């Protein structure tokens, strides 16, 4: 009998939880705030679903019930992607070591 593809996705999911577990424990506590903002940004990869939904409409009816939700989700996810990565970058720029010429 063939294995249902769902099982493969479930395996990826479970293994990723373990990867997440070990990777996040190694994050230094002083970077916990950037961790939250960057996880925010990457979870907005949900935008791929939104793009599929938005583009599924036909040319003569760009805004049907389903694609409108796609467009709304694109906007929200885009806010998060740009906002999340940029604010993380802004924070990380501030973390500096000693010795090097302090301003």
């Amino acid at each position: 009998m063939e294995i249902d593809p769902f099982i493969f996705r479930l395996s990826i999911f479970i293994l990723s939880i373990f990867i997440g577990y070990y990777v996040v424990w190694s994050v230094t506590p002083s970077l916990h705030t950037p961790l939250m903002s960057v996880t925010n940004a990457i979870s907005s990869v949900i935008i791929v679903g939104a793009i599929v939904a938005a583009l599924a409409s036909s040319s003569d009816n760009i805004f049907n019930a389903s694609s409108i939700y796609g467009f709304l989700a694109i906007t929200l996810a885009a806010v998060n992607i740009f906002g999340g990565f940029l604010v993380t970058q802004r924070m990380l720029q501030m973390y500096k070591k000693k010795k090097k010429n302090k301003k």
Partner: protein
Amino acid sequence: MISANLSAIFYLVSGILFILALRGLSSPDTSRQGNYLGILGMVIAIAVTFLSIGSFSNSIIYVFLFLIIGGAIGAFIAFKIPMTAMPELVAGFHSLVGLAAVFVALAAFLNPEAFNLGSSGNIKIASLIEMSIGAAVGAITFSGSIIAFLKLRGIMSGSPITFVGQHYLNLILGLLIFALIFYLCKSQSNIIFWTVIAVSFLIGILLIIPIGGADMPVVISMLNSYSGWAAAGIGFTLENTALIITGALVGSSGAILSYIMCKAMNRSFISVILGGFGADNTSSDAKDKKDQKPVKSGNAEDAAFLMKNASSIIIVPGYGMAVAQAQHALRDMVDKLKKNDIKVTYAIHPVAGRMPGHMNVLLAEANVPYDEVFELENINNDFANTDVAFVIGANDVTNPAAKTDPKSPIFGMPVLDVEKCKSVLFVKRSLSPGYAGVDNELFYKDNTLMLFADAKKMTEDIVKNLE
């Protein structure tokens, strides 16, 4: 147009890049590079999505339009937001992820053909379950984060809102969602799907309203975790590896952060997941005891004198520093002290502030080198051979009652041993107890000097007196 197999491989690549982005955060040196890898992963995921669709109708113009609008708003916020507002920003972003998950689930439900999930009214049962879970968790994340945002922003009072039977109501609503999803599989009805979303929305609100303002570090981490699980649910629906990997990463990341925050407050994980904490009713008792104990209070001159004659100082920042925006003044003060060859370090309790790592970001903003900033377990032994502890805007995290008084609501919570210093300076606006409603016996000790003032004002005055 690229094949489904090829795009699946690219989604895997972007998932791996996201893992590396988090890995980079293990040290500030590698973190910036990690962030770029994360951005690269996102670009790949989006590009592959366009390529895999291949044929475009005119709607692509609108896709880019909305992408640009959202991106511009996000970029604007990212550049304008003050660092002290980071907790509410993160809460706000969580709500957007949650709402986006709800919208994508709705789009998939209304147009399952676009996602190869069957046809309208005849969606595959497995997909239906996945998308309703995604939508439900997304709705909980959305409304919960909105409440957290309002509380952090001060629009809504930070005090817990509780009523009788709260937990039972949440339980019933939770079971109701399962029943509705079960029924949805049979009926495939639009109204049921909307009801699932509406009930989840209500649960999100009910989960967060009973939680007090200072417990926000746990709440934010918890919502972070929820937003990950919502994304993973949608990932299963869309059969998208990048989304599944990311959802799992974010979900476990948030869960670990909430675990760390719980540990730091000595609360059980379960009680946090269920919500409803932060409503300790012990404050009235503490208020009675407080009244007429003698307190030594001083002014900036006394504080400056004490610090000038010290050889080592540890600074303990807390939420009060964030509220008063005192981090830059603090940095000026430390610069002055260092010129006098005084050793100055910073001690940070995991739950200081309103979100994990809150204090570290503020100190980094004020150009404090990160290797002068220490976590609780790395610095707690140093208090005993330090001359002065300068506590600015922190309270409960220094309270020795957590070690000595089994009746105290915060008993068992790890605290910073500031009382072991030769003298303690407390910058605080009044004698009022912290969020736990517990009086701090440190205020009445002989070697404690209370500096009653706004944290920023006091620090600036001390700087003047150090000249």
